């Protein structure tokens, strides 16, 4: 009851004060409120001066808790002249200042090779170990199957394909190493006559190849009718009177 009564007084007093475009309620606001609520204001000074009134002492003053100082790194930058002073201060420098830390890249050839080699070896070992763990294995020692696990040999249905065709990795490498040769060979698929010929073998390669294949490509249209290979001829439809 008391609480709601008191808060009602406060609320109404605030309303009155705001009504008169002020922010701080004054005594008169409270008086008006009390009058409004039907309280006899004249009795109030008498009540305050009653003899057996309880006095509530003021709470002891406690030390203001010290807010820990935010970690500051370096001096906050003052505003430059074009920024008005009321703008907030710059944050701590560490939030926007970059500190370039240069580590020398390893350029030593030896270390590089060493690294590449051991990296590759680790990858390979990890990969093969994984494969060995997940699949069937063979072992050279009867007492130990895990130190030198060999991935079990599995026969192929067409063994010559894997043995003869270069792997994708190698193909990639090929393209990287001689990408210059590639442009000529774009339309090799459809015609057997246009060839990626390596002239006299690995010794003397690039220049002559380019010449040849381009000359072949050039004269292709003219030559097409000349080629008369029986294996390229269309298959004949059976005749009613068939040859035997």
């Amino acid at each position, binding site marked *: 009851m008391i609480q709601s009564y008191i808060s009602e007084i406060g609320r109404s007093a605030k309303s009155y004060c705001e009504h008169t475009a002020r922010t701080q309620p004054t005594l008169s606001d409270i008086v008006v409120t009390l009058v409004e609520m039907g309280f006899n204001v004249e009795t109030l000074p008498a009540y305050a001066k009653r003899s057996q009134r309880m006095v509530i002492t003021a709470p002891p003053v406690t030390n203001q808790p010290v807010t820990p100082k935010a970690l500051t790194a370096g001096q906050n930058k003052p505003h430059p002249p074009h920024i008005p002073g009321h703008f907030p201060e710059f944050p701590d420098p560490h939030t926007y200042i970059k500190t370039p830390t240069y580590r020398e890249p390893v350029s030593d050839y030896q270390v590089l090779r060493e690294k590449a080699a051991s990296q590759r070896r680790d990858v390979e070992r990890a990969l093969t170990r994984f494969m060995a763990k997940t699949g069937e294995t063979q072992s050279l020692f009867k007492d130990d199957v895990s130190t030198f696990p060999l991935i079990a*040999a599995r026969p192929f249905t067409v063994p010559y394909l894997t043995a003869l065709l270069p792997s994708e990795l190698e193909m990639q490498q090929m393209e990287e190493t001689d990408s210059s040769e590639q442009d000529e060979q774009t339309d090799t698929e459809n015609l057997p006559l246009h060839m990626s010929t390596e002239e006299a073998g690995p010794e003397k390669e690039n220049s002559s190849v380019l010449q040849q294949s381009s000359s072949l490509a050039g004269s292709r249209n003219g030559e097409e009718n000349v080629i008369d290979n029986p294996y390229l001829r269309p298959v004949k439809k059976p005749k009613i009177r068939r040859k035997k």
Partner: protein
Amino acid sequence: MNRKKGDKGFESPRPYKLTHQVVCINNINFQRKSVVGYVELTIFPTVANLNRIKLNSKQCRIYRVRVNDLEAAFIYNDPTLEVCHHESKQRNLNYFSNAYAAAVSAVDPDAGNGELCIKVPSELWKHVDELKVLKVHINFSLDQPKGGLHFVVPDMEGNMAERGAHVFSCGYQNSTRFWFPCVDSYSELCTWKLEYTVDAAMVAVSNGDLVETVYTHDMRKKTFHYMLTIPTAASNISLAIGPFEILVDPYMHEVTHFCLPQLLPLLKHTTSYLHEVFEFYEEILTCRYPYSCFKTVFIDEAYVEVAAYASMSIFSTNLLHSAMIIDETPLTRRCLAQALAQQFFGCFISRMSWSDEWVLKGISGYIYGLWMKKTFGVNEYRHWIKQELDQIVAYELKTGGVLLHPIFGGGKEKDNPASHLHFSIKHPHTLSWEYYTMFQCKAHLVMRLIENRISMEFMLQVFNKLLSLASTASSQKFQSHMWSQMLVSTSGFLKSISNVSGKDIQPLIKQWVDQSGVVKFYGSFAFNRKRNVLELEIKQDYTSPGTQKYVGPLKVTVQELDGSFNHTLQIEENSLKHDIPCHSKSRRNKKKKIPLMNGEEVDMDLSAMDADSPLLWIRIDPDMSVLRKVEFEQSDFMWQYQLRYERDVVAQEEAILALEKFPTPASRLALTDILEQEQCFYRVRMLACFCLAKIANSMVSTWTGPPAMKSLFTRMFCCKTCPNIVKTNNFMNFQSYFLQKTMPVAMALLRDVHNLCPKEVLMFILDLIKYNDNRKNKFSDNYYRAELIDALANSVTPAVSVNNEVRTLDNLNPDVRLILEEITRFLNMEKLLPSYRHTITVSCLKAIRVLQKNGHVPSDPALFKSYAEYGHFVDVRIAALEAVVDYTKVDRSYEELQWLLSMVQNDPVPYIRHKILDMLTKNPPFTKNMESPLCNEALVDQLWKLMNSGTSHDWRLRCGAVDLYFTLFGLSRPSCLPLPELGLVLNLKEKKAVLNPTIIPESVANNQEPVISSNNHGQSVGFQNTFSNSQEEEEIDMDTVHDSQAFIYHHLNMLERPSTPGKEQSSGEITMHPVSAAPLSVFSKESNSSKHSDHHHHHHHEHKKKKKKHKHKHKHKHKHDTKEKEKDPFVFSNSPASARSIRSPSLSD
């Protein structure tokens, strides 16, 4: 008789001439591996009374034979199916070889024989008498052929074309009879029409021109029609069917290449060189390629790497390679060139008889050599000649001689030309494969000798003459008698040579062609200072097997201070010493350059020389114009000079080999200098690596500096800044590539004082592996890596304890652990990123076997067995099998031997089957003079069965089995067999302590006439004696022919439907005995005496009887021709074979 055909007097052994043959294969079933078709032969009788036509056919099931549309009776009899009766307990190789040779001649088309005998219907006899044309139409089928045609059907999803299933013809020499009935002779030429109906997704490649391709009515199949208008022998007919990718050669449109699906890019690269080979041959022979087209087919599971047939060649698909592969490129090109050379000589020009084979092999090998010289250079060519020469010399010294031109005159052979061999050389089909390889090698070397004699120009003229004669003859479409001009004979060839060159090369021919053996020279010298003369002593060894005496000129080159001088010595009967005057005074001319043979003048450091002698080095027969082995003694500094300054690669190689015996710092220096010299031939440098390793090992206590070659390798291939790291791979320079590959392998052979591989070397190799980086390389490094693994394997030395039990992981030597680590990683990586031809797997398997053998890893064949299974790449399988063979030998494992032998019988790939036998022969689990737990009766029986009947579908395999049997048990009865009871009986009869005839050691058995004739009176003569008697070879052969024919009665029940079943033979046998005619009745009378008599006892009697009859009959029989022999019923009735013909209603007239 109109036998006088052709200028060269070729006489057909047949009473008819074949002019045309149609082969039509209507249906090929890949699932069932069967073939159905017919053939039609157009023949002209050449004698009036022709009533039987003999043709060759094996495996084929023949349904029906018609002659001019009339049904004809026929019999099918193939004595080679089972060579000796299986009742025979002889188990004696001598006996077998004779019987086998006899069986082969009994069906030899060159003797007018054949497996299939067709009786001309009596209605046609009149027709025949007028010598009118006969058309023989034969319907046949082939079910699961074991030889001749090879089906490759991968086991996977999809239809046959998607699976890449294919079939091709294959075989050793004339093997066409395995897939259709024909006259399977190289001398019977005719024109051909070939038709194959195949699945629409497949391509049929065959000989001659593809005329047209027509769909069948249901459009699901198509028929390929081929015409071959150039007369060709049936043996040169071939076929390949599969879902091939087609590539028309961009340079020559009449050349077409075929390969299996997905391999087209490789095919393009591989064949892109072929046109140059064509151009080369056409140019040197001044003759166009004889056929109108050429086809190359690359197939899987090839029988041989290269097989040449008329207008087409069949290659192994494993020859294909991409542009990244270095090592395979020259090998493949060689194969292509070889195949093409055989198109001219071998396919287009065929041979008259087997004894003329050497001419064809010789010429094709010779022109192939010319191509090599042009393509790879003189160094490579000379190196190759030297290699071939060394091979043939080693083989002849080992086995006792290779005879190029065996002459089999009638009865009066002075000596069996091949008595030192365990097989007959009368027929190509009885030859050991190794012998045949060496035969080809010798043939081309002899051609080269002829060239040396008459000059290359004349030589090529002779070839041109042969070719132009042949092409004229081949264009005579309707004059089939002219076709014999297309056959080459030894005499015709020699006549051509003398016509063209005007030189007499008879002595040369006599020495190298008509006679076997090589020459073995021992040379040494002394310098006579007073006379300023070089006293050369040249001795010969002509008593060891495989040698012969050489009489004639011999070139000797002497390098003196003043230059190089050639001297021709006359090697005569008794002159050993030869005085050669020297040109230079021994006083050394100061500061003068020394002229070499090639005109070059070089500075030499002469301080090493003997001050008194002006001789730098001496070479005997530098041009290799004698088939010889030279062992020459000269001091080490002379070899060193020879190595450094002689420009001939052969001389350099000889010097390197000689220097092995002189481990001195000077030798080391000479070798190192050669290694470093960029101009030096790379093969010489490679050889120097190995020699250096050997020298270093001999000098181990005095060796100073880092291990041999290490600093050299570092300088050549490692980074300048960090010498322990190898450069990233760049194989653009092939010479250094090969050197880079070889040096680690040689270095790993180094040993320290404890006979271990130095730690430094091992670490070096491990570093090479570690730092190997191929990312920037244009070429694949698979061969390089494989050789690094080989190097690791080379570094392995025997473990301290070899006991199998203690080979555990804990006991593993730390060095070996490192090695094993690498091998494991490599082998596993191969599963993920396989290398070309799986070279790395191959090397790993070999290395693992080395570790097992040296006692580091438990010896266990299980790993190898899994890699040897069907389905792995063939190189891998061979490597694995080699390890198993080695295991079998080292651990004497009966189980593994059985496993290998069952693979010989059951493996789908003929090459593997052949190779296992070959490897077992080269690395046998035991030999004839060795005690071994493996050598037991069961094994003898098993091997005997294998060669007797188990391998009748493949000549090469059978000969391989014979070789193995010979290696294991020798010529006579295997020692592990119990003494035959028969032998004991005989001994009792003779009442003296005679050796059991079946176990007489070879030396005795091989003895000549006297032994036999003394025993000849009684029937007690041992079987073996009868057969090993070379003088009576002819009669014996006849006997064995009949003997082998005796089992034909098995086929009686098959008259209606003759085929060549494997198992059924034994069934009808016992019941047939009583009805057999004359010779067998002998048996029934005589054999009563001994209850326990085995079947060979019967034979034994039979043979004696027959032999007596034949002895007189034979003489006049020889005067008659073979035809009359056939006509004479009495000759035939002697043989058990005729017993059947009497019973047979269809043949009784």
